[in-house]
């Protein structure tokens, strides 16, 4: 015996409502990619600030020339080099953990891949002192700068602050932009569900009135529209969600072969540079869309039905 399950509401017969699946599917695809972008931007910004905060670099030009003696310290014998003078000051500065000195040759070696051996041979890079801070709070960079400048003029203390804040600004903008896109796309999807329900209602006005006359409550009628929206949108949401995840993995895979050095440090090693938690969030996007779609359909139908009669 045939099951009695066909819906009274016939929305799928033409009308803009039949495009609901395509619209919602496209929206979910964009939203998932935007969410992944936002999460990725967030994790990039996290990693950069983690690896660069607590780090200072002191540049000492002409490191092996003798330091001029400060007015307070009379010169008893052989003058120390500028580098030695800087190290002396750093040694008594509180908060410093570990020092690494990159002398001129190592600095040249570092620059060679970027500038070429010829050019590097002609320049005289400063000696770099890479400092890991033990206790960033105890460190007074302003005071250190002043002291160094007085004793060894020309030294530069770089706390990467401007660079970091620029990275932070860019990644934060990208992250916010990503979430904004998710919101906008969600709003558009919500609107398209509302319009689908409204056009379905007006196409089925006679049937809706008939159902009411037979004693159907608004909830009963609204449920029919929810079912329709679910049938139209759910396959699209699932397919679009899977396509979007595949896209993210593909992008991750494409960027993988070059992932050495900086990129590896930033965590491109993981799929698409995203953590498990990020992936859960990404997969939650289509689920949230699905729930939103259903709730929207119900609300739209309930409100419209009250206005109808």
């Amino acid at each position, binding site marked *: *015996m*045939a099951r*009695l399950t*066909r819906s*009274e509401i*016939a929305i799928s*017969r033409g009308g803009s409502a039949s495009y609901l699946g395509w619209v919602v599917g496209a929206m979910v695809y964009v939203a998932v990619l935007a969410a992944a972008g936002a999460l990725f931007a967030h994790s990039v910004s996290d990693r950069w600030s983690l690896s660069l905060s607590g780090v200072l670099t002191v540049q000492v030009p002409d490191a092996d020339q003798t330091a001029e003696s400060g007015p307070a310290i009379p010169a008893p014998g052989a003058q120390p080099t500028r580098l030695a003078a800087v190290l002396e000051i750093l040694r008594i500065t509180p908060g410093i953990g570990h020092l690494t000195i990159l002398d001129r040759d190592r600095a040249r070696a570092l620059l060679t891949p970027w500038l070429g051996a010829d050019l590097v041979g002609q320049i005289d890079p400063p000696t770099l002192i890479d400092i890991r801070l033990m206790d960033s709070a105890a460190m007074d960079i302003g005071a250190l700068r002043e002291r160094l400048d007085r004793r060894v003029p020309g030294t530069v203390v770089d706390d990467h602050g401007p660079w970091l804040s620029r990275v932070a600004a860019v990644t934060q903008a990208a992250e916010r932009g990503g979430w904004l896109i998710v919101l906008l796309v969600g709003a558009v999807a919500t609107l398209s569900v509302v319009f689908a329900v409204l056009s379905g209602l007006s196409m089925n006005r*006679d*049937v809706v009135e*008939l*159902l*009411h*006359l*037979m*004693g*159907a*409550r*608004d909830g*009963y009628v609204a449920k029919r529209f929810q079912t329709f929206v679910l049938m139209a949108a759910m396959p699209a949401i699932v397919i679009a969600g899977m396509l979007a995840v595949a896209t993210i993995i593909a992008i991750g895979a494409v960027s993988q072969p070059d992932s050495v050095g900086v990129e590896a440090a930033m965590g491109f090693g993981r799929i698409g540079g995203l953590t498990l938690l990020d992936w859960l969030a990404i997969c939650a996007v289509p689920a949230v869309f699905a729930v939103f779609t259903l709730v929207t359909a119900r609300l739209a139908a309930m409100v419209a039905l*009250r206005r109808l009669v």
Partner: protein
Amino acid sequence: MVRFENVEMRYPAGPPILTDVTFELEANSFHFLTGKSGAGKSSLLRMIYLALVPSGGRVVVFGRDTKTLSRDEIADFRRRLGIVFQDFRLIGHLSARENVALPLRIAGTREAVIRRHVPELLDWVGLGDHMDALPHTLSGGQQQRVAIARAVIARPALLLADEPTGNVDDRIAFRLLYLFEELHRAGTTILVATHNDALCDRFAHPRLHIEAGLLHRVAAPNSPADQAPTGRVVPFARDQAEA
């Protein structure tokens, strides 16, 4: 069961349809509602099934003033009514079986019960062979019987029929009325709007006659010469002939 107190009905433009209508339908009564077309028969029925609010006076159905009902209460009230519409109002993309099942589904009846009752009733109105037919493949008379089956499937306390015999010849009209008689005997209150005098003459029930905005009660003819036969009637044989 239904009481009208000084009911007035006027549409925004035009003269009043009903000016001062007062009457009562007792439980388990059977009335015809007559009057010229445009006299206000449909408006009166629509007020009973709460699709129309009177412009004046009170309409009391099942003991409640219809103006005091909330939206959901209206829905629940309507489940106790069966309505046969003049133009049937079957849902075109649903089969006869699914159309008849609607009131049960709306009332939240279990599927198992629906699967048992719907074919039984369709069989009883002679459409056992057309259960899965879509309305447009059925004749006018068959559609009408689907509409009637839908109106009575949920065992309503009150059955309203608006010109149920408007589109069929007298032979079929009489059969339909025998069906209503049967329901009446089973305890349903019935109000049939019609302008078919032959029906009113043949079936001895009191008439509510609308004329010039007023309603007059006309007693049943004294000699019910042609009462419906007693006992269970099968008003329609499984038909092929009619189509």
